[in-house]
């Protein structure tokens, strides 16, 4: 309980810090919201030119960007610290997390905040409202949507944590971790109808990019309970694996002698 209190305190403190630079804060949020519209334009015109592809109508991508935007926004705003793990390792800042009696993962996760991710969250929310109006979602669909937002956030957090934990094994793992994470994220922004056969299998079970947006949209549209159970099981699997992998990888960490007071 005290760990959670500390995590909430960290988040509040980081948010306050960012808010001090008001212009930068507002520009980041608005800029990111506008920036994300590009993907919507691209895939909307793609859908308009091609028509229905694998059951995906042009405006179904609203749902894709709703889920991916919201999960990205939640994780990158509240738990942005995990994306700093490679930097913490290479600079030796990770030492300070090891020397405190609190939950290491929770403390690392909440050590940073990314204000621009609030723009992603806003964008996801706009897309979700538009998707809700377009599809005229029922109460049941709406409830499942809320559950799926939590699920996609956990998946995004878990796989990102795995990508970043790889840095424990490498001399300068920042690029490798970022590269893997980019591949995971960028593939989640492709049109859901694009993935068939082997490609679909790979991006569900090996690199879970499709679980961030495409599969949740298909669950909502088709009310597919089998897919819902599958995504729940995969979420548990990825979350447990990521936490275990983080703590196992952490044992590889060797403290360095960089003198400083950390971040």
């Amino acid at each position, binding site marked *: 309980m005290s760990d959670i209190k500390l995590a909430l305190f960290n988040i509040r403190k980081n948010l306050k810090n960012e808010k001090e630079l008001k212009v930068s804060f507002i520009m980041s949020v608005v800029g990111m919201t506008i920036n994300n519209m590009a993907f919507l334009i691209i895939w909307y015109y793609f859908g308009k*030119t*091609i028509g229905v*592809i694998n059951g995906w109508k042009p405006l179904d991508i609203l749902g894709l960007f709703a889920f991916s935007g919201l999960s990205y926004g939640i994780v990158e705003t509240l738990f942005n610290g995990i994306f700093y793990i490679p930097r913490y390792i290479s600079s030796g800042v990770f030492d300070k997390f090891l020397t405190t009696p609190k939950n290491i993962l929770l403390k690392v996760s909440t050590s940073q905040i990314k204000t621009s991710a609030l723009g992603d969250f806003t964008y996801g929310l706009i897309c979700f409202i538009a998707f809700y109006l377009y599809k005229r979602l029922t109460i049941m669909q709406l409830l499942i949507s809320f559950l799926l937002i939590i699920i996609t956030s956990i998946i995004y957090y878990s796989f990102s944590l795995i990508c970043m934990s790889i840095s424990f094994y490498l001399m300068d793992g920042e*690029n490798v971790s970022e590269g893997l994470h980019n591949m995971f994220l960028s593939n989640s922004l492709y049109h859901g109808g*694009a993935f068939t056969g082997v490609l679909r299998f790979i991006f569900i079970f090996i690199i879970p990019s499709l679980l961030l947006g495409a599969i949740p949209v298909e669950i909502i549209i088709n009310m597919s309970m089998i897919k819902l159970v599958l995504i729940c099981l995969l979420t548990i699997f990825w979350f447990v694996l990521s936490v275990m992998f983080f703590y196992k990888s952490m044992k590889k960490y060797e403290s360095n002698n960089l003198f400083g007071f950390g971040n």
Partner: protein
Amino acid sequence: MKRIRFFFTVLKIHMKNQMQDNTNLILDVFNMFSRCLIVFLLYGYVFGLKGGVVNGVDYTTTMWSMFIYFCIMILNIRRIDKDIMNEVKSGNVETFVNKPYNYLTINFFKVIGKGLFSFLFISIIGSITMILLVGIPDVKLCVFVPMFTTTFLLGQILGLLIYGLIGVLAFFIQNINPIHWVVDKFVMVLGGSYLPISMFPPFMKTLAFISPFGAINFATSTVYSSFTSEYLIRTALQIIWIIVFGLLLNIVYKKSLEKSMINGG
């Protein structure tokens, strides 16, 4: 002459530096491979549905256009603005602007040097793979090569000026990232990244033609048959934009230096 040799030495040093670090190259190859694989499979499926031709353009031409775009992204000149921003934020810029060379020019060569090895390696290997897997687009090499080379070079110069201008804005505003994101997305969309240019609606085609953001990636259009007739006007547009942004960058950079003097770096 001596100055030019110095700039190319800087480029060579940064390129050699990248050549020593294999992880970057492996990552670039891996990213390029995954991007191309997904896009090629997606459009393979789409073109299959549409009988092999969409908006009068075939699969091979479309894939080559997208391949060129992805290769240009590997060169990654757009990172220049963040490099400048980091130097401004850290205060290191003060040291660099006092050196007896132009700070912006040296940064241009640095950023080219950082991406050149990956770009050349991936472009050559990728082109051979493309010829084997996708085929050769319907272009005459004696026309395509000079057209591609000029539009590519002019596009990259324009890109350096635009992103350089964003970078210099770091002297005035604390965080240039939001401007970078918006401009970057314009460049990405109008360059034909995920959606090929042949599938653009009319308003986007016009925007890609007349805007400076579209002009950065004119090279991606060189594989289309219509490009030959548009070549001269497109080159003229690129030169006009280079002059406009060159002048603008020069003015803003001078103002930035004044500002950095006032603030003491």
